[in-house]
């Protein structure tokens, strides 16, 4: 049994991580801007506060064995100042507080955005990191802070997940789900032959907990083992849905321009990371995580997309409401009507 601090523990992925930790007998403290869903009787205590506040983070780290740092300002937020203060300054606060509290281990969730569009796939932990946009650069800067803390003696493991999917983490998938449900054309860029890997929140949480249990290991890339191209993943979903929806290729150049324009005028919730990567291949070699952590992912791309789609169908009418993070919020889109006409 360990005492864990989970920053961002009220968010979707954080909740999955907290539940897994509780299931195996850990005690958990959550640091989040928002209080978590109640878990009556569970050994959970909560610090409601901002990771940008060094004193709050310091208090949250007291008496903790392992810190799991998951707070991030995600690409959907599109706010450069927040990218910097939350992702970089927030990580600095966590690193310093973990070090000063002498915790045994810090596991921090980074992003595949640090790799930008890779020249070669698969991408492993030593592949060059060349982020393309503000989110990826902020996450890389946070990684540089972690490397500096490691050099100064703190045990830190960086987990770099592919795009996280799970029922509470739908993000822009909601746009594709709307199209599938309506039996509309589902766009992929330039044929959709890019290999696009997802990772299930449950598999990612498992990797984080395993990394927290052992010393060393600077970075692990985490993604599903069964995944195909963007077209194959979405075709599997269309077959499953049986709504008559079909995958349809659109030229990448104009589509990226449309995504960027729709975002600029506020009718669609994309960020540069989306229009840059939707049509690109990015998949991880997860050998190191399997070897060092004994980690085996249970969910394929197609499973995840279908599971998420079904959850969304069952809950789509309950999704409107305040206080949700960007990844949980159902997105508003005037763009949808345009996309439906692709058919």
């Amino acid at each position, binding site marked *: 049994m360990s005492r864990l601090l989970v920053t961002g523990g009220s968010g979707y992925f954080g909740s999955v991580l907290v539940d897994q930790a509780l299931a195996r007998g850990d005690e958990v403290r959550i640091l989040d801007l928002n209080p978590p869903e109640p878990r009556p009787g569970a050994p959970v205590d909560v610090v409601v506060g901002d990771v940008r506040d060094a004193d709050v983070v310091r208090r949250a780290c007291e008496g903790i064995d392992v810190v799991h740092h998951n707070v991030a300002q995600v690409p959907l937020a599109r706010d450069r100042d927040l990218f910097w203060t939350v992702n970089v300054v927030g990580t*600095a606060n966590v690193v310093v507080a973990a070090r000063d509290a002498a915790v045994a281990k810090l596991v921090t969730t980074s992003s595949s955005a640090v790799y930008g569009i890779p020249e070669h796939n698969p991408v492993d932990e030593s592949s060059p990191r060349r*982020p393309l946009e503000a989110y990826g650069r902020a996450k890389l800067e946070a990684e540089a802070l972690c490397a500096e803390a490691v050099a100064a003696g703190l045990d830190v493991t960086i987990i770099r997940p592919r795009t996280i999917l799970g029922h509470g983490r739908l993000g822009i998938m909601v746009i594709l789900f709307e199209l599938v449900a309506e039996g509309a054309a589902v766009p992929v860029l330039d044929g959709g032959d890019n290999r696009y890997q997802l990772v299930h929140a449950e598999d990612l949480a498992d990797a984080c907990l395993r990394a927290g249990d052992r010393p060393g290991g600077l970075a692990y890339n985490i993604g599903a083992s069964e995944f195909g191209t963007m077209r194959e993943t979405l075709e599997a979903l269309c077959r499953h849905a049986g709504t008559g929806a079909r995958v349809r290729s659109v030229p990448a150049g104009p589509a990226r321009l449309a995504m960027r324009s729709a975002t600029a005028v506020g009718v669609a919730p994309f960020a540069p990371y989306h229009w840059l990567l939707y049509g690109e291949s990015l998949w991880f070699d997860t050998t190191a995580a399997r070897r060092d952590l004994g980690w085996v992912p249970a969910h394929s791309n197609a499973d995840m997309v279908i599971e998420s789609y079904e959850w969304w169908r069952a809950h789509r009418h309950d999704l409107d409401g305040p206080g949700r993070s960007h990844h949980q919020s159902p997105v508003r889109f005037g763009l949808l009507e345009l996309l439906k006409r692709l058919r």
Partner: protein
Amino acid sequence: MTDAAALPRTMVITGATGWLGQNLVRAVAPERERVRCLVRTPEEAALLAVVGTSVDPVIGDVRDPDALDRLLDGAADATVVHTAAVIHPTTGTRELFDVNVGGTQLVVDRVRRRGAGRLIHVSSNSPFGANPGPDHRFTEDSPRHPYMGYGRSKAEAEDIVLAAHERGHLEAVVLRPPWFYGPYQPERQTRWLRAVRRNRFPMVGDGSNRRSMVFTGNLVHAVLRAEQVQAAAGRAYWIADGPPPTMLEVIDTVRAALDAEGFAPAGGPRPRFPRAVGDVAERVDGFLQARGRYSQVLHVLGELKDTIACDTTRAEIELGYQPATTLLDGMRASIRWCVDRGIAL
């Protein structure tokens, strides 16, 4: 001549988040009990604290006496390294004097009143202007010809520090580094590397003018020597990598460093301006600065034609200064630093 055993356990650094400051903090943090760092914001404090447990950021402005009192609190024996300065002001030339002169005056006053160890003042080539010809080298005895507002502000700051030393108010050493390069570089240096890679950096004149340069690691070494050598008290020293390369050699070495780190530089003709363009830029820069305004582009363009070269013999003999990193290796280190942070070149 040196007395390493008496090395103070605390170092106080102003400008700790600057180009030299970032390198200095990282060099000394593992060995000192405490590295008291003046930073401007809580965000800067958080980032710097990651470096190590000895790092102790104090948030404030070098123009604020209260901030300096907090910085020097309990640091009676500490070496104080004053690196805070403005080179390229954003709000007009007044800022140069407020920070470079006013800030230095305050640091000197507070060190005198509160007591501290040796003050190492980081100055510049700029109080000396340009050499009269490409073969001339500045020594510590050369006459001063401050170049524009920055040069005047740094000359005044030197005078304040050295006068305080002579009056016995404190013990000071002045270091005069020319053009820096190295990790933790500001955005302007990244733009310069990009321009050199694309062969867009203009040569003003024929490129035979010489420029002393200094790698941040070499300058950190000089700061530590200036801290340790007793006989350095009250003296000023030029600090540079070694014999000054010509401007052409600088550009060619940077291109070789880019190539060696996997960033093939572009070929083709290099933009060239006659010296007269530099003269005009200098005049317009001077005209603007006389009216309190500042243009970084004009200022840099006006200086590109000049030889700014120094002789580091005194530092080598008196401080035991031995620059270990060459221009090529230092530039490669800078480029790797950019790569590690995802900064595109």
